[in-house]
């Protein structure tokens, strides 16, 4: 559910049905790693350190421009708590990209990355793209997970890797932009290699797209 802090801008975004592409993204990771904060920073450019546990699942809509194309992002923010798992995994399926987040000051959240990756493999669309994000990189003093370790795990899992901070607005935008980019790349790739896939992708991702969509995402 769109939260109370939506800015007017994002309200306008939300109602705007005029776009070239539409991507569904999902943010997952342990409880309290900063998923909601990350999304708020990106969508509303706001941050609050108060911890409010997400109830089930929430979403925000943001429209970005990539190469003169309007890309509408429907970003789903999931509750990290185990008890919501049955509910949240239902939304994995429609997602084209994932932000798998851990907290660099929290060993458990990092240990859980492997499990989350398995969840993605189990429930999501095969071509879903994943970025591993080590959040709270502003808390350098409390760091427990070295950057290298995060990068190594990301390589192992075949994910992209970023360290970011929702609080200090480090790499937030970059993470989303990168995710959009690799989704586009993947789409182009699979369309090139398998013409049959074209129809599929058109249907899921190129909604209301003009004829130019013939060549796939131009991003």
């Amino acid at each position, binding site marked *: *559910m769109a939260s109370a802090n939506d800015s007017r801008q994002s309200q306008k975004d939300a109602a705007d049905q005029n776009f070239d592409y539409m991507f569904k993204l999902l943010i997952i990771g342990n409880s309290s790693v900063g998923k909601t904060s990350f999304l708020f920073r990106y969508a509303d450019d706001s941050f609050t350190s108060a911890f409010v546990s997400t109830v*089930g699942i*929430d979403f*925000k809509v943001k429209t970005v421009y990539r190469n003169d194309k309007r890309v509408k992002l429907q970003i789903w923010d999931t509750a990290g708590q185990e*008890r919501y798992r049955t*509910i949240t995994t239902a939304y994995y*399926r429609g997602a084209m990209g994932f932000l798998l987040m851990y907290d660099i000051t929290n060993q458990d959240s990092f240990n859980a990355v492997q499990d989350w990756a398995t969840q993605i493999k189990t429930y999501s669309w*095969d071509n879903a793209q994943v970025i591993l994000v080590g959040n709270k990189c502003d808390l350098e003093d409390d760091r427990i997970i070295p950057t290298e370790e995060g990068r190594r795990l990301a390589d192992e899992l075949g994910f992209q890797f970023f360290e970011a901070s929702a609080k200090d607005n480090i790499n937030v935008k970059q993470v989303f932009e990168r995710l959009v980019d690799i989704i586009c790349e993947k789409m182009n790739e699979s369309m090139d290699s398998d013409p049959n896939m074209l129809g599929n992708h058109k249907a899921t991702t190129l909604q209301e797209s003009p004829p130019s969509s013939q060549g796939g995402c131009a991003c």
Partner: protein
Amino acid sequence: MIYLIDKVLPDSYFANNLRALLVDMAVFRDLLRLKLPELSQHLDNLQKAANREVGGSYEPPLTNVFTMQWFLTMFATCLPHHTVLKIWDSVFFEGSEVLLRAALAIWARLGERIESCQSADEFYSTMGCLTQEMLEHNLIDSNELMQTVYAMAAFPFPQLAELREKYTYNITPFPAPVKTSSGKLGRGRDSDEEIDIDDEDALVSAIGCLGPLSGLLAPELQSYQKQLKDHKGEQSLRSCGNIAELSPGAVDASRSEYQATFNSMMMERMTTDISALKKQYIRIKRRQQQQASLVYIKPGPEVESDPGIATDPRSQMSNGTGGYCLTFLVWCKASFCWDFGGGTGTEIVLRLERAVLSKDNCCSQECKVHLPGKEPAEATTGSQTFCLALLLVRCILGIFEIP
């Protein structure tokens, strides 16, 4: 709060992978179909359209995101406070079905704008705006809402008990499995009813206790009254001690998690000043005994009571823990010191107390009257700290303000 989680809301609303919540969400979609067929049809169509899109896309029932949040927070995060308080009042009076009714009333109000949506994405976008309007701009008139809630059907809601039972026991796909054209048919089921293997244990225990317990008030109260006759205060207190010594594994799965936390907290408290507590406990217990006969209110609206529950060992356990809660409250009052998770709890309580006191006129009248009577039958299952804290405050007010 304890009362709310334990007696008003269906069992396992907050525990057991939210099993009862999932049931209620499924039930709600049925009710929507009954009461608002056009809207329901429209939403189904949008969902199906989203599913038809190839490429592995799968759309869960569209209302889920919203009803889940509404039900879990009892609208606290979705509507203006005065409206929320009205709904809560009604929940205390009429039972958890008010949540379903209120949700129906809200969808009815939003229906027109939703029916103009042409796709699931557009629906979500629109709802993003609408939810904000609901929260901030009084899109929903609270009086109108409550009128709709009461006017839509007789209490208890016809067929509700049956529907809840149906989904509790029959967690097979519904509505008919959505066929997706991708290769992943196996996952095309409605996720709500989907059961992971890991969930199966939880399910078994949910099935074991959910049906008969939902909305069950009268038998619990009877067994409580019986307990009052049978036991003196001291004995109950001793049985509390026994409960505390049980390992969490001995407790019903749905309760164990919270129970363990609660017990450790209580043990810590109790060992500090057990005799003073005991004295106060007996005094309060006696007062409650007097009240118990006075404060019997009408049974919950969805009493589908299974008389067997009274003899169920679990009901004894919940009575035992009820004593616990009482002790706990007494302790709160006596020491005015409450660490619920490292000091933040104290702040929560104070803030809530203030909130409750200031909103008293429109909110907690009936809680004050009703809660003490049923207090001893309360156990603690849920683990929503916020809810727990709020109800505890209400309990405290209730217990100590009645002459």
